[in-house]
């Protein structure tokens, strides 16, 4: 009973349904695990133990009355840019250190309706800008598999919490890889849905044409259950898809024989570690020989090499506009030592934003400024069109595209902090799908140097069902799913 934190969400739901244990017992087990490993991992900015126990008691009432749905009583980590009424939401930034939202985000409303239990608000790179969670104003998160390494980012707290058993599942957000890359580094499954699949209402905005909330879990089934909960139309987000969403869990056990898989040769270039490459080659062999897919390694997406530049112009441009709201006037940190409003504003933003956020605001402001707008921002938007077209042409011939999730395994804390461009290169395989608004999932495919490696499946618009179907078959064939990092805790 004391090891309930080791269960997946769907296993725990079965146990709760059969009354083998209660949601309060499950939550207490996870909270004990948090106490035990959090000093090493630091997956959370805020642990919400009281909220969790209250929600667990409500979930137990649902099980008692026979009204419990799959997420009832399941402990969830919620990335700290998802606003939660009455619970501090910082986005990893000093500028929001004391911000207590007066309303709930759509996705948190959905979790509440499903009876999920919030363990806490997960650590993240400030405003989701980063690939290592080192850019949190509240200190870095460690990778549960080796605490000297980063967990990836920006949803590093969410991925680490799931990998370490500090939550059964988690919500993250993905703008250029922020769910998939930390999922790969932490040996968990992470899905970035189609742009518009999940409402952005109540999500602290970074790059509004790119941001999506998505699930992280220890296996594909949990990710499908979470997506079923958070997806669907919300009139408060004008880009939210009004079409009814399918039942994603229905896709899992269908098998993938005959699926056509394209492997873009532009992804197999300099910079990919040999150990990662070996795992991806092995993954392609499994897809072809064990699962009966056709694998074509001659797919060409020539504009891939420009996706990084397109992303690092468009996302900072949107960020520079979105972050203009943090002015020290309406909420958040405010430096009022100077004697004019404008001085207060500059001082507030100087002291409230960290080094990477300022760097991106500067980059975006420059790309949007007079004389450079056409050369950078509009040019990037046009190349974005080119990238989209190449993907659309590819999906006329293939069901899915398979790539590595990241070029390396998790790297040491501090290794890339002084070289922002090297840090940006972490996202080289996740950015193209983000730029095109396509759904993509990272699934563990084994290890290199004792650390998890992720393979990425990219689908066409609204094809999360097909992605989950392939990821589930692949996960079963690889046999790596559902591993918990011990973190030197109870072994």
């Amino acid at each position, binding site marked *: 009973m004391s090891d309930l934190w080791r269960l997946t969400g769907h296993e725990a739901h079965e146990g709760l349904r059969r009354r083998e244990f209660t949601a309060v017992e499950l939550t207490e087990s996870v909270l004990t695990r948090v106490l035990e490993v959090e000093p090493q991992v630091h997956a959370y900015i805020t642990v919400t133990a009281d909220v969790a126990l209250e929600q667990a008691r409500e979930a137990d009432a649902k099980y008692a009355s026979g009204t419990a749905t799959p997420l009832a009583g399941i402990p969830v980590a919620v990335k700290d840019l998802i606003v939660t009424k009455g619970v501090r939401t910082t986005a990893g930034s000093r500028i929001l250190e004391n911000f207590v939202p007066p309303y709930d985000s759509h996705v948190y409303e959905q979790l509440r309706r499903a009876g999920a239990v919030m363990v806490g608000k997960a650590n993240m790179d400030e405003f989701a800008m980063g690939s290592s969670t080192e850019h949190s104003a509240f200190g870095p998160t460690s990778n549960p598999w080796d605490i000297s390494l980063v967990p990836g980012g920006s949803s590093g707290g969410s991925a680490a919490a799931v990998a370490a058993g500090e939550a059964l599942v988690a919500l993250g957000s993905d703008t250029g890889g922020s769910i998939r890359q930390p999922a790969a580094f932490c040996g968990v499954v992470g899905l970035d849905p189609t742009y518009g699949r999940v409402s952005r209402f109540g999500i602290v905005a970074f790059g509004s044409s790119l941001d999506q909330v998505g699930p992280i879990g220890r296996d594909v089934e949990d990710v499908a259950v979470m997506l079923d909960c958070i997806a669907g139309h919300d009139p408060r987000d004008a880009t939210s898809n009004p079409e009814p969403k399918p039942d994603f869990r229905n896709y899992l056990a269908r098998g993938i024989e005959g699926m056509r898989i394209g492997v873009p040769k532009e992804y197999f270039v300099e910079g990919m570690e040999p150990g990662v490459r070996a795992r991806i080659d092995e993954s392609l062999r499994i897809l072809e020989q064990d699962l009966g897919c056709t694998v074509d390694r001659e797919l060409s997406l020539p504009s891939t090499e420009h996706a990084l530049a397109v992303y690092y112009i468009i996302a900072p441009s949107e960020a520079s506009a979105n972050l203009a709201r943090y002015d020290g*006037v309406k*909420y958040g940190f405010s430096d009022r030592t100077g004697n004019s409003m404008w001085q*207060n504003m500059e001082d507030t*933003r100087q002291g409230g934003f960290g080094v990477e956020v300022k760097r991106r605001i*500067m*980059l975006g402001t420059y790309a949007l400024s007079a004389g450079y707008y056409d050369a950078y921002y509009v040019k990037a938007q*046009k190349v974005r069109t080119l990238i989209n077209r190449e993907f659309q042409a590819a999906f006329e011939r293939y069901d899915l595209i398979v790539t590595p999730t990241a070029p390396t395994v998790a790297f040491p804390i501090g290794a890339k902090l002084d070289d*922002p461009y090297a840090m940006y290169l972490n996202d080289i395989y996740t950015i193209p799908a983000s730029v095109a608004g396509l759904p993509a999932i990272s699934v563990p495919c084994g290890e290199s140097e004792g650390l998890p490696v992720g393979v990425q499946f990219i689908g066409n618009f609204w094809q999360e069902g097909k992605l989950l179907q392939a990821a589930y078959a692949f996960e079963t064939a690889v046999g790596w799913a559902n591993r918990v990092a011990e973190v030197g805790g109870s072994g």
Partner: protein
Amino acid sequence: MALTTDDVRHIARLARVGLNEADVERYAAQLTVILDHFDALSRVPTEGLEPTAQPLPLFNVMRADEVAPSLPQKVALENAPEVEDGYFRVRAVLE
């Protein structure tokens, strides 16, 4: 192209981000490196291509113009650094 320290000060002013001298030097160097990597974009032929603002084929998503409750004033002001008579208070705007 190389960004000068004056360029950085100008951008910081536009963005209303205070920077110290060490920040100015560091950002000038780092942004120059990053922008150099972006120069390859200028060589991509894009004649006749429309810019993509967001990936979905969406145009003018409208909703009914209906009155709905918003946050009460008291709640909206709860996170404010300084409040006076139901307003956000700031220092002098005109110098």
